[in-house]
């Protein structure tokens, strides 16, 4: 819209800026892009910078002491509870990620190779639940796994169990199941795209040269879909590590994750600088795990080739 206005502006007032805009395509592009980039900068870069600064402050009564100190980080390193929560978050979301990618791969494979008509309808069907309220999908699992929930009461009324299974809700397993279910669409899309791109003639060539279905899959399909697997792993692992809703509603004490700890610092504990430090630590660890994962996939890829 503003492009058209720019063009009109040039005809009316051939000022300096208008002449520059007319001559430089790049500048016009930047002008068009700038509102969006500005919103994102204000919404992400500036807040992150202040978050980083705050992580070096300390709490003083109801206010903050803004002299820089690494005390928060020292505390995070020395008190085992923080490391334990971080480790548990990585463990839970790592499990959820592996489970999701494993379960979604055959589905993505099916749509990519065995659906020939209405592929889009399938993709829409698979991704549809992902777009609806995350809170409500987690609530659904609470209803299902609850002490008097769907599973327990169902099994009870069928006479299969005598007493409700207490371990269903408020456990790590419950969190893993809920996360895997909630993020399935995020895994399906990159997997599907990478499988769909595979040149079908490569598969025919492998078969003609004597590979059976299993060898063909291991030597052609799997390596070529590796980028999709990597993307899916990232897309699920990163957001789930810092998830708050699922552990808060489903996790209980055993399933609480680093997100809950961060929220506590900004809520009940009211130690914002500590919360800021934990957020920064979480981001750094996610980045570190991500880089390590990338390096490993590089090596694996090099071995396969």
């Amino acid at each position: 819209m503003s492009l058209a206005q720019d063009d009109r502006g040039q005809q009316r007032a051939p000022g300096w800026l208008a002449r520059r805009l007319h001559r430089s395509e790049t500048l016009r592009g930047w002008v068009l892009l700038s509102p969006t980039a500005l919103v994102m900068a204000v919404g992400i870069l500036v807040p992150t910078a202040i978050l980083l600064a705050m992580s070096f402050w300390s709490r003083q009564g109801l206010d903050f002491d803004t002299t820089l100190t690494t005390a928060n980080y020292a505390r995070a390193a020395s008190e085992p509870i923080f490391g334990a929560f971080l480790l548990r978050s990585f463990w839970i979301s790592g499990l959820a990620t592996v489970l999701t990618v494993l379960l979604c791969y055959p589905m993505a494979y099916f749509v990519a190779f065995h659906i020939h008509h209405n592929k889009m309808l399938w993709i829409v069907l698979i991704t549809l639940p992902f777009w609806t309220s995350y809170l409500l999908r987690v609530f659904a699992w609470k209803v299902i796994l609850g002490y008097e929930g769907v599973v327990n009461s169902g099994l009870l009324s069928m006479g299969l169990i005598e007493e409700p299974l207490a371990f269903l809700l408020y456990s790590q397993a419950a969190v893993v199941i809920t996360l895997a279910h909630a993020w399935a669409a995020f895994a399906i899309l990159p997997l599907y795209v990478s499988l769909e791109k595979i040149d079908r003639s490569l598969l025919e060539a492998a078969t003609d040269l004597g590979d059976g279905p299993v060898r063909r899959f291991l030597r052609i399909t799997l390596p070529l879909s590796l980028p999709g697997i990597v993307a899916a792993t990232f897309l699920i692992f990163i957001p789930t590590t810092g998830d708050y809703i699922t552990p808060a509603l489903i996790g209980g004490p055993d399933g609480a994750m680093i997100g809950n700890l961060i929220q506590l610092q900004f809520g009940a504990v009211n130690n914002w600088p500590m919360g800021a430090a934990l957020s920064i630590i979480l981001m750094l660890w996610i980045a570190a795990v991500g880089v390590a994962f990338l390096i490993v996939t590089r090596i694996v890829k090099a071995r396969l080739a």
Partner: protein
Amino acid sequence: MSDGSYIQRPNRPLQVYAALFLIVLYVPILFLPLFSFNASIYVRFPLEGFTTEWYRQLFQRDALWAAFRNSLSVALTVSLITTALGVLAARAVTRYRLPGQSAIVTFIMLPLVVPGIILGVALLVLISRLGVPLSLYTVTLGHLIVCLPFSVATLLPRFEGFDRSMEEASADLGEPPWSTFWRVTFPIVFPGVVASFLLTFTVSFDEFIMAFFLSGTDPTLPMYIWSQLRFPREFPSVLALSSMILLVSFLMVFLALWIGRLGAVDTRSEGRVE
């Protein structure tokens, strides 16, 4: 495509798996509407009879309707602004060769993967440092950040499949830029605009974590639901409310994906040639 090819031969186990996958994907959500019609305050089997009582009760809750209006106005504002910004960004990225543009697109997509809690507390810290009181405006700002990636991701394929020679033809035939935009450019990208609007509206309407950190005294609808979740006694009415929200969300998103994808498919084949 040769349908008789051995690679594309129907694979029975895989078909069964796909069916199971869809069932597992949808059944958990479908328990919400199922129990919302159950004539018992307890959410458990066996079902005790059909009732619309829980739905009737919703209409007597003023706090719920206030929260609903809050969510509606936030979602409308957010979807309008993000779609406008998304159009500008998609146009800029596809029309011009900008140095560092892929880095910027990656940056815009960042909120898709950064844990929501980090974006939430970072904005909270900024807003409180500026001394701005938390309100629906701060929630709107948070939702802008969350929704922009969805808008750009929806609009980019639309603009990528865009054939520039159409615009050039229009200009050669003497149309001024403004009317070229309205008569050529806009109709071509319109389905993407509609899809982006519907998607960002739904995402904002359903968003919880930003609202959790950034809302003041006026709750959004998900915040209202969250506050009710503490009371098991309220579960049936939350179920009724959730079922209605889910139904509307499903319809809107289905429409959005359908409109957006349909267009993207037939233009993509042309776009690939470049």
